[in-house]
């Protein structure tokens, strides 16, 4: 009996802690997503379903250090796009244009990588800086439109996606086309981001210094959002723009800066992916960059928190590597996208779970402080939160 009590107390404390609610709800979402995934596997190929499912779950363990390192390699760009989407979310904005920012960032990085080998060791640095700049500009445009003309950022960002994609296709043909493969030329060896000793830890994998750069941005974004007055202003606008205005915070400035920083992050993601030295090239096809949309999933799963985004990115990459090895059991790797999609659906539903947890806590707290009478409005607000987002 006393054992059960202390267990209850433990969970009570756990669920009272800030952020635990969202963490638990993400875990629940992942669990449900995996179970539904297994069911689909069973339907499509019952004989090898469990073997395939197991392969997917052990993801990075499939091929020792090689596959483990590749998890981080795959995670790098989607952590960046996830950070981008999450950062905008914190200010109450939806950057659905990460694909566009990603591809224009990738293009300028590749352009510098091909055309300026004389820069030597600075080539990759300049490539990343240029990608930052163009990504910033790319999303600052919807930011400006939103701030001054009240154009919805989702519409403007989607438009910028297509402008980015077609423009990059055109520019590649004009500047850095490999006519035999219909994709961009290989960049100079000095344009590839140095391995920074990571291949020594994960031999045989495509991991490179880009992963460390992504970690750097995760920490940087966390500090900006949680520790600075700038983050305080951005989040204030995101939570309640009326109160932000009342407090004298310049809302337009916050919108523009938040969008610009968001675009910068996605742009860097493009550079990190195509300067990875892993033999990837920009294909001249009329398809939006998948990393941009995966970024939305990563951000949702990570609850827009930079640290959460980091782990969500690694998790999705883990599944993608698992999916790659599932081909052994004649499952197509696209299957992973189905599972990811289910997990995202569930994490949307997990908002409901989280709200339920919060609501329960709220009721408890209210009763404890004996202040339950006055503001039933608050409870209603919590219920509505899911719908607001």
């Amino acid at each position, binding site marked *: 009996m006393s054992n059960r009590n202390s267990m209850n107390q433990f969970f009570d404390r756990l669920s009272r802690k800030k952020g635990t609610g969202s963490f638990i709800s993400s875990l629940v979402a992942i669990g449900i997503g995996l179970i539904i995934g297994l069911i689909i596997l069973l339907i499509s190929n019952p004989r090898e379903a469990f073997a395939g499912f197991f392969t997917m779950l052990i993801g990075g363990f499939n091929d020792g250090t090689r596959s483990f390192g590749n998890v981080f390699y795959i995670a790098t760009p989607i952590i960046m796009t996830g950070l981008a989407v999450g950062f905008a979310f914190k200010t109450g904005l939806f950057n659905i244009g990460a694909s566009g920012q990603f591809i224009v960032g990738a293009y300028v990085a590749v352009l510098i990588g091909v055309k300026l080998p004389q820069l030597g060791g600075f080539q990759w640095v300049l490539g990343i800086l240029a990608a930052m700049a163009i990504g910033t500009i790319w999303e600052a445009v919807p930011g400006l439109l939103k701030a001054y003309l009240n154009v919805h950022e989702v519409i403007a960002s989607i438009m910028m996606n297509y402008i980015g994609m077609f423009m990059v296709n055109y520019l590649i043909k004009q500047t850095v086309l490999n006519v035999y493969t219909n994709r961009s030329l290989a960049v100079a060896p000095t344009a590839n981001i140095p391995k920074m000793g990571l291949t020594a830890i994960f031999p045989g994998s495509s991991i490179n210094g880009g992963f460390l750069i992504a970690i750097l941005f995760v920490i940087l974004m966390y500090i900006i959002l949680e520790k*600075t007055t700038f983050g305080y202003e951005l989040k204030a606008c995101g939570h309640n723009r009326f109160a932000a*205005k009342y*407090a004298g*915070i310049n809302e337009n400035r916050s919108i523009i800066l938040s969008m610009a920083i968001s675009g910068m992050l996605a742009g860097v993601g493009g550079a990190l992916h195509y300067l990875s030295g892993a033999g990837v090239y920009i294909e001249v096809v009329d398809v939006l960059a998948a990393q941009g949309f995966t970024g939305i999933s990563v951000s949702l799963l990570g609850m827009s928190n930079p640290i959460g985004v980091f782990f969500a990115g690694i998790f999705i990459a883990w599944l993608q590597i698992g999916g790659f090895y599932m081909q052994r059991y004649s499952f197509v790797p696209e299957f992973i996208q189905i599972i990811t999609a289910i997990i995202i659906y569930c994490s949307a539903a997990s908002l409901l779970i989280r709200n339920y947890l919060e609501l329960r806590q709220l009721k408890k707290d209210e009763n*404890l*402080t004996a202040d339950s*009478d*006055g503001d039933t409005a608050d409870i209603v607000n919590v219920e509505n939160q899911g719908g607001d987002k």
Partner: protein
Amino acid sequence: MDYIIEMLNIRKEFPGIVANDDITLRIKKTEIHALLGENGAGKSTLMSILFGLYKPEAGVIKLRGKEINISDPKTASHLGIGMVHQHFKLVEDFTVLENIILGAETVKNGFLKMDEAKKKVMELSNRYKLYIDPDAKVSNITVGMQQRVEILKMLYRENEILIFDEPTAVLTPQEIDELMDIMKELSKEGKSLIFITHKLEEIKKVADRVTVLRRGKCIGTYNVEDVTKESLSEMMVGRKVQFTVDKKDITPGETIFEVKNLSMKTKGSTKNTLNKISFKVRKNEIVCIAGIDGNGQSELVYALTGIRHFDEGQILVHGEDWTKKSIRYRNSHGMSHIPEDRHKYGLILEYSMAYNLILQTYFTDRFQKRGFLKNDSIHEYADGLIKKYDIRSGQGAQTVTRSMSGGNQQKVILAREIDKDPSIMIAVQPARGLDVGATEFIHKKLVEQRESGKAVLLISLELEEIMNLSDRILVIYEGELVGDLDPKKTTIQELGLYMAGAKRDEVKA
């Protein structure tokens, strides 16, 4: 005696607290029974039990002498128990009629029989004098009519026991009078009413009997005729409450705040929302702007605080022209603003209490260094204010503001705004939705401001608050100031005439 509903010896516990401790509530048929208590006294818990939302640990509920078990709100509804919630539960995009029949539709072969429903609703509407427009969209009708829709919802379902949860909190004085009449009409027609409130005035006006709760305990049930307002409030709060605030006699000093010919145009209309408003607020003075809700008060406050631009006129503080100053400038140069809607403007509910206390000062050197928030000084500052203003919460400065009670949320705003040491304090309905104790506290603080040499501008709908606090009353009607009255020389009746636009004087600054 004939009781329609009896709740006997009800006990309800939540972890760490007894919300209802041996409470007995007996409602006679066709009476209006008031349930009086401060926030947190256990009124809502008790009603939630009657409505089937909570299960009591002990106690019996009897309907017409027969013991019943109310397991959920649906059962309660079947038993004829209906409730008008403080925050209406209406579908904004539906018409009045659609809202009334929602959940109780009459259907034929899967099609709604709207005509029949409409006939029934209109019959009820006429019989109880609940005037509504059945085809209007809920989002377009007044708060008063929305409440009548809620009442009709209960009547349409043929509920016999009607619970009103703080129904007057959102109404104007006129609408409150109308509601009182409606409630009397309902009891005359044979309904039994439970009226949850903490406003003593209304109990005296309309209720037959009253049950007082305090901290989960039942203090007693009394005939309203036999008790005075003073004794009721003492029973509710547990100590003597002052209704009138002691104000020292001070002659106002020099002008601090001056508004000259302020006008705000209305889009698509030739009539101005605000028209040539001029007034002065002096040192040691509380000037009150009285008026019926929606006569331009909100817009005036937005204009004065810089939230909305206006077309003509001037604002002066200490003789300095503030017309074009930013919100931040006003915030940090001596203007405090207690907003009308504390959830929309006053607080960021997702932020901790500490972060809300620095909402307008987070950028000062005290709370940041090179762009980084100084959490230690922020918390130290917050802890100081929490102590000084007796702000209660679950986890101190860390408490997420959303989880706090309305009264304590208002105290957060009050603490923040007073601590800025303003020269002009603009308070908009500062006691809205608060109980007697909290209201008393806030009024005392405002008078303290006056006495310490500030100028206070109070915008209020509550006549009692206006008469009690102000040194001068300005009446606003349809965006114009129509009266400049001395509260010592005027009466509530006269004030009412000005507010209704039946009487007007030329008002000069």
